[in-house]
């Protein structure tokens, strides 16, 4: 195990000398997809709970499709499926985008986590106390003010426990990246496994790294809960 650490320790954590690899890539995938997914999911959650059919149905279909299929299948659709289509070849941008394992993985992760986060936030919005909304309406709040000052601050707070679960699941989901040739932690572990045939240690080190990141995330969210959920 020590010889693996000496020889591949840097590749597990930071870089293999040419590219970023290992923990840095995993964290990059995690942070990028969680941030984009969060930003997209708020308007989608508002649309999902708006009660207007023309808003509700498209979001419902989106979340049904992305929550009803495995992330691996979604990644395969983007990575090996879309690239074989004719119109993707003829467009420079699409060709460049779908040729990259990184972008395909990010696209799949963002859409997937966005679907789950939308449902989490929509659930929290639905549970908002009716009296709060009535009070805001009685004070003459505009729709924008109602959402930005009353509904969203309280709904997002109440969503923190389920949202922290979702973020940890996204961390777990990033381990799929190696199937799209992205050099994340698990890709390094597989390379080490095929180079040294010490499977237990090669994957064991990866497992411990993921465990440490998970515990960090849990600690961060516990802090957030203490700060923003004090009143509960």
């Amino acid at each position, binding site marked *: 195990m020590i010889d693996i650490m000496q020889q591949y320790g840097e590749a597990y954590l930071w870089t293999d000398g040419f590219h970023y690899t290992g923990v840095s890539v995993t964290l990059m995938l995690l942070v990028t997809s969680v941030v984009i997914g969060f930003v997209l999911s708020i308007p989608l959650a508002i649309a999902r709970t708006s009660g207007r059919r023309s808003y509700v149905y498209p979001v419902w279909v989106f979340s049904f499709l992305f929550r009803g*299929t495995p992330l*691996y*299948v979604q990644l395969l*659709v983007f990575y*090996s*499926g879309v690239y*074989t289509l004719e119109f993707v070849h003829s467009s420079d941008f699409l060709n460049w985008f779908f040729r990259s394992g990184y972008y395909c993985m990010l696209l799949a992760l963002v859409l997937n986590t966005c679907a789950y986060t939308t449902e989490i936030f929509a659930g929290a919005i639905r549970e908002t106390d009716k009296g709060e909304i009535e009070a805001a309406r009685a004070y003459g709040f505009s729709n924008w003010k109602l959402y930005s000052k009353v509904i969203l601050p309280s709904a997002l707070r109440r969503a923190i426990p389920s949202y922290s679960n979702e973020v940890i699941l996204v961390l777990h*989901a990033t381990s799929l990246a190696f199937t799209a040739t992205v050099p994340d932690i698990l890709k390094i572990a597989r390379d080490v496994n095929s180079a040294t045939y010490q499977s237990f240690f090669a*994957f064991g080190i990866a*497992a411990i790294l993921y465990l440490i990141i998970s515990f960090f995330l849990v600690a961060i969210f516990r802090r957030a809960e203490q700060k923003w959920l004090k009143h509960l």
Partner: protein
Amino acid sequence: MLYGYTNLIIDGALMTMSLAVMSALLSMILGLLGACAKIFGSKLSSTVASLYSTIIRGIPDLVLMLLIFYGLQIALNQLTEFFSWQQININPFVTGVLTIGFIYGAYLTETFRGAFLAVLKGQIEAATAYGFTPWKVFRFVLFPQMMRHALPGLENNWLVILKSTALVSIIGLADVVKATQMAGKGTYEFFFFTIIAALIYLLFTTFSNVVFYWLDKQFQSDRKDTRV
């Protein structure tokens, strides 16, 4: 319609389904054991159960799958070599079931633990007061009520298990993903066949949603009857 790959894909879909059902059963058994150990067990067994549920839930399922798949085979090789037996090759299906069941047992431990704790204390006290033995309390009072509270968590976990079976194609099992990828390679219609895989999964999850909706209704009406 499917360029002659229909049978392959149907076999794959059946493989996915049986894998999901088997691992769900295993994980329910492990989850029940873990929850019971955590609540009723001695200090040692509750520590073991806590370690199990904490560590497994912190590691991605794919990493555990590869760890167990490769690690188990090598450990077995060393064992057979040590005793100079013939080499035993692990069946990927068995490994898949063991791995997925083992992983989601940890998640179900928490589901069942929460459900056990949600059963009102008075129920247990009443049963004890009527002279029920601890086993009878568990079998007739605690367990049936616990299952109602566990149902939403069970549904969630079942859907996650169903979707996580897509990963077994990475360790070489001929599930529906593998079948559609093979069909894609044969015809170079990757997009079409991967969408087929997605549709099959959608069909499975929608069907499960319907079943759980029905189960939930069944339990809800039951609950109302007992309360009136």
